């Protein structure tokens, strides 16, 4: 396990912002990165001229440097899927502590819906996925990220109704968020009656597909109080990758790498489950936060579905999860992890409006690398 104290209160998020979200055909992917970057810098009272470190995924640090016309002295292009930005936060903190940079900018932008200025997606026909998955008609995350769920249902007796309840619970939060794309309450029956996509997934088991961006600015403890907004401290982090193709996930009933990254984050922060009363669990599909809740140890293996179905994660519940409305109802550009971090920051800043959790001091954010291929966990705090 990593040292519990080395990063404690050493690095803070001092700038955080999202672009407009939704359907934005007038903006390219790279412009969404830049727009988010400039908004996050403005949030911190900074400009591009103050940035000497860049981390990004979905494009490269070189592209961001070029587009913003800056020359950072530290870069990180870790790109392992939707949770890459959580990893970037951990890497940026280490870089700041090591003196590799002073002001790190983490950017996300994606024209996931309008597909403006997006590069090619799939791996080629000689890749492992190209040889051993693509010939069988998997057509993206809805047909592939979903592959393990039936094994979970078989092994634990989890049910389609329970997974449907994840969408219902998450929508309850979205009704409180004016920026959420989908705000009308839904029922378990609505989910089960929505059209089949890739059984056991139906439409309402799937996240949205949107355009948008978000960015974060990180600095060292010494400077953390010199900005307009109160600092949000990185207290713990963990990351892991295990495979790329869903076929080669060793145990289809559990998110094995998430067990590791959750434990690492808790150990580093010196905290335990009882300390965490706000969770952001990347919800590309309704089974993903169920696997996460179990792997992170908030419930016993196999009990995640029932926990959501009992509505413990909803407004007024004992463990609020995905308080922005999640990828299911708020926004999902393709690599949603940035927005999960953003909601943790928003809640810890006390800026969450009607959905604000009173007196919140800690938040845990968790996101996948790819499709169950790995994970990253962050624990953030405002004290």
């Amino acid at each position: 396990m990593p040292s519990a104290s080395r990063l404690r209160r050493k690095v803070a998020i001092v700038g955080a912002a999202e672009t407009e979200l939704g359907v934005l055909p007038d903006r390219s992917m790279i412009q969404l990165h830049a727009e988010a970057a400039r908004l996050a810098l403005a949030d911190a009272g900074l400009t591009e001229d103050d940035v000497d470190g860049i981390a990004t995924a979905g494009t490269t640090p070189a592209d961001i440097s070029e587009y913003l016309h800056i020359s950072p002295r530290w870069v990180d292009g870790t790109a392992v899927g939707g949770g890459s930005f959580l990893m970037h936060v951990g890497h940026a903190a280490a870089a700041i502590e090591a003196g590799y940079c002073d002001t790190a900018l983490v950017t996300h932008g994606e024209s996931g819906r309008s597909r403006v200025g997006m590069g090619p997606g799939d791996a080629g026909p000689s890749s492992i996925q190209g040889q051993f998955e693509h010939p069988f008609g998997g057509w993206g995350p809805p047909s592939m990220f979903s592959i393990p769920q039936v094994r979970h249902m078989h092994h634990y007796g989890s049910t389609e109704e329970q997974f449907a309840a994840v969408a219902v619970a998450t929508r309850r939060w979205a009704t409180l968020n004016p920026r959420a794309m989908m705000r009308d309450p839904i029922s378990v029956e609505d989910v089960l009656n929505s059209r089949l996509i890739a059984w056991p997934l139906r439409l309402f088991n799937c996240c949205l597909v949107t355009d948008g961006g978000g960015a974060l600015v990180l600095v060292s403890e010494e400077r953390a109080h010199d900005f307009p907004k109160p600092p949000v401290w990185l207290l713990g982090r963990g990351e892991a990758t295990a495979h790329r193709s869903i076929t080669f996930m060793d145990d289809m009933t559990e998110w094995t790498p998430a067990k590791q990254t959750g434990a690492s984050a808790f150990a580093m922060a010196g905290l335990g489950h009882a300390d965490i009363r706000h969770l952001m669990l990347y919800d590309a599909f309704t089974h993903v936060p169920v696997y996460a809740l179990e792997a992170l140890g908030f419930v016993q293996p196999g009990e995640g579905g029932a926990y959501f179905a009992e509505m413990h994660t909803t407004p007024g519940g004992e463990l609020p999860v995905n308080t922005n409305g999640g990828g299911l109802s708020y926004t999902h550009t393709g690599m949603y992890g940035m927005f999960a971090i953003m909601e943790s920051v928003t809640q810890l800043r006390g800026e969450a409006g009607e959905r604000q959790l009173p007196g919140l001091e800690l938040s845990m954010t968790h996101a996948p690398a790819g499709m169950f291929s790995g994970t990253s966990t962050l624990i953030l705090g405002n004290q």
Partner: protein
Amino acid sequence: MAYDKPLPEPTPETQEFWDGLKRHELRIQRCLDCDRFYFFPRPFCPHAGCRSGNVRWETVSGRAKLHTYVISHRGFGGFADDVPYVIAVVELDEGPRMLTNLVEVEPTPEALPVDMPLEIVYDDVTAEVTLAKFRPARG
């Protein structure tokens, strides 16, 4: 009509697997030190604690069990006419898992109990490529 679905492009490490399928043989690798099979092909044992380079290709039974699956109700390109179709992970009797399509079976949850026995079907999709698909075992 020309085959219009994605085709694999073998690498030097995987060529024997694809050549075997073309001969209607399922060829996977086995570690001679820890005695276990593995898949996907690579010239070293991936098992923790072993990692040996002492491996060889073997022809295996083609028998498997249904590990998990989805029934895709959307399909793109050449798959558009196939919906609904089953994308499954099967566990070979020798241990390794692979992704495949299930054929000769109703694409419904009722017809597809987890762990049902399966057997390989060699699907010669082009003159060059044979894909390993699976159907309910016949005995």
